[in-house]
């Protein structure tokens, strides 16, 4: 089988809270609770879930902004959290990140050309100014920016164009993997569509792999080859695009895909499966299934035992007692 670019093995991330008493152990937020996955070349893997499910912690772990509490992340079989500083620098070249907010993610005092050239200055020290400029103009054209944007400030661009600048900055080092953390969720639909098309083009042309993190299941369905549904730090279901969207098994996945209104079904469809309640606190998560408090199909077993990941077919896995 093909070698995975990134392999995550049972990663956990805890954030201890401030001690309330000298004599007690501090409470812990369990942001990520045992996630394993592989990301292969030229595929896009989607993570979908609501706020607080650990999506963004996951992306921070992958670009080495955080260290996992336990478990390991391998990039081409090397543990990324146990490398030297130079090793880490090399890795960062290959894994890039595009964030959600097109306003906050660009320094307003820098010209677009300088913003895109910073990664080159850090990682490709041998490049001459001329080479850098050519390279930058190249990627700017690739994402659809005019060359005259080079000397302008981010302020003079619309949200969609700013996201293009972000993308140009991400691809200028020719990475293998781009993590898209809600990269289109702040954009208007018509602009969002062109940015999504740009992602598809870049993927085909550059053989990129994406790890796409989003709450909008429409975007995930459109973009991703494989999809994982996260709830409270765990993957509750994962499978191919068709597995998740045509045959969702976990009650949470089902609720997500029927509760969200869609243009096609909206006219006749009634929201039958509105899930009640909210995501419980990630502090002191009780044993058993973490979705049980909101689940309409909860069994007695859901309170006692944490469900295990159950294999439905080659690609499709679900963590739910209903399928045990």
């Amino acid at each position, binding site marked *: 089988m093909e070698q995975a670019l990134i392999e995550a093995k049972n990663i956990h991330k805890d954030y201890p809270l401030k001690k309330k008493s000298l004599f007690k152990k501090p409470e812990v937020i369990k942001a990520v609770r045992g996630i394993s996955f592989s990301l292969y070349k030229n595929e896009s893997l989607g993570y979908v879930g*609501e*706020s607080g499910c650990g999506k963004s912690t996951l992306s921070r772990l992958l670009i080495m902004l955080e260290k996992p509490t336990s478990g390991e992340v391998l990039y081409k079989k090397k543990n990324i959290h146990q490398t030297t500083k130079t090793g880490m620098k090399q890795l960062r070249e290959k894994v890039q990140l595009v964030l959600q907010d097109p306003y906050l993610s660009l320094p307003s005092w820098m010209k677009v050309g300088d913003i895109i050239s910073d990664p080159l200055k850090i990682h490709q020290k041998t490049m001459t100014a001329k080479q850098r400029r050519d390279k930058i103009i190249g990627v700017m054209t690739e994402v659809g920016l005019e060359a005259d944007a080079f000397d302008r400030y981010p302020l003079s661009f*619309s*949200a*969609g*164009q700013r996201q293009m600048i972000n993308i140009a900055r991400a691809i200028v080092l020719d990475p293998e993997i781009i993590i898209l953390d809600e990269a289109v969720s702040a954009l*208007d*639909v*018509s*602009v*969002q*569509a*062109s940015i*999504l*098309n740009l992602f*598809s083009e870049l993927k085909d042309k550059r053989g990129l792999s994406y790890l796409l993190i989003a*709450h*909008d*299941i*429409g*975007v995930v*369905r*459109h973009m991703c080859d494989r999809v994982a549904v996260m709830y409270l730090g765990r993957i509750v279901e994962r499978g191919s*695009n068709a597995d998740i*969207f045509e045959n969702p098994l976990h009650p949470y996945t089902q*609720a*997500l*895909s029927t*509760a*969200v*209104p*869609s*243009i*096609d*079904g*909206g*006219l006749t*469809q009634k*929201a039958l499966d*509105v*899930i*009640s309640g*909210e*995501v419980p606190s990630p502090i002191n998560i009780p044993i058993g299934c973490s979705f049980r408090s909101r689940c309409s199909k909860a069994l007695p077993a859901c309170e006692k035992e944490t469900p295990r990941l159950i294999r439905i077919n080659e690609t499709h896995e679900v963590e739910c007692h209903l399928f045990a």
Partner: protein
Amino acid sequence: MKSVAVTNQDRNAKFSEKKQPILQVDGLSVRFYTRRGIIQALRDVSFSMQKEQVIGIVGESGSGKSVLALSILNLIDKPGEIMSGNILFNGQDLLQLNEKAMNAIRGSRISMIFSDPMSAFDPTLPVGDQLMETIVRHHKEINRKDAREMAIDLFRKVRIPSPRRRLDEYPAMFSGGMIQRAMIADAISSNPELIVADNPTQALDVTIQQQILELLAELKRRQGTTLILITNSLPILARYADEIIVLYAGGIVEHGTKEAVFARPSHPYTRGLINSTPRIRGRRLKRLKTIQGFTPSRVETDITSAKCVFLDRCDLAMETCRRRLPGAVWLGDTAIHYSKCFLASELNQTSI
């Protein structure tokens, strides 16, 4: 199918056949005077709505959605100005009222739900106190104890669990969904005839978004509230609106029953919006069809320019579109459906 371009008088005649609308907006134009120039935030916006109707207003950022919401409550302040138009609420022109008379309507007969409920509440006071303040304002004779009971009742209505305890908590102790519920409780405390909801679920998670929208739909069924639902999401309107108004660059480009707008979208912009929305059902497309270009800058040099506002982004633009402003073309496929495009009738007949 026959389609005729209709003038304003004709449309008014069409409306007057029905019973008196609860809200009638006629020829509303709003400008903002900024240092960079004049922004025409709304241009000649007209629509009317009947009691217990849900009208959905959809548009992208900068289309004038929020300005429209604020205009209905007569809340446009300097540097903005309502240039022309009438807003008739039960036959009474809100723009002619003095501040005192308007204050008697605002928040009591017409309420508003904002997209950012956290900033609508004062962080230094318990939510219950703020809710009771609204209640006391609308029910002058009420004593504190009854006001509190009423607040508890409202919290129950919007399904906030353990309402008694929640009343004494501060806004920061509420989650995004819960504070939006509290905001809705505040908005319905006076039994308003009309609620204007400006992007009420913008910052919320999908499951919570669903809960809030279902709550609004339920209030409409139970109390017969009329609702203006402003959003940038077409799928939400597909489920919750009766009629849809599509705003682009401050003007209505298409208005129709939701069945008509989704089944036979007749303006290139509406079609573009529908096409660029990623679907959760049906065939997966390799590429989404997009609308070329970006939303135009709203600072205008030539405010009176007579050309189609969508011209620069339209695939179907013709010579006429450059020279004349397209008027409303009534399509006659449902009781109400018009599009401001020279090709409206042709588009109406062409599947998307």
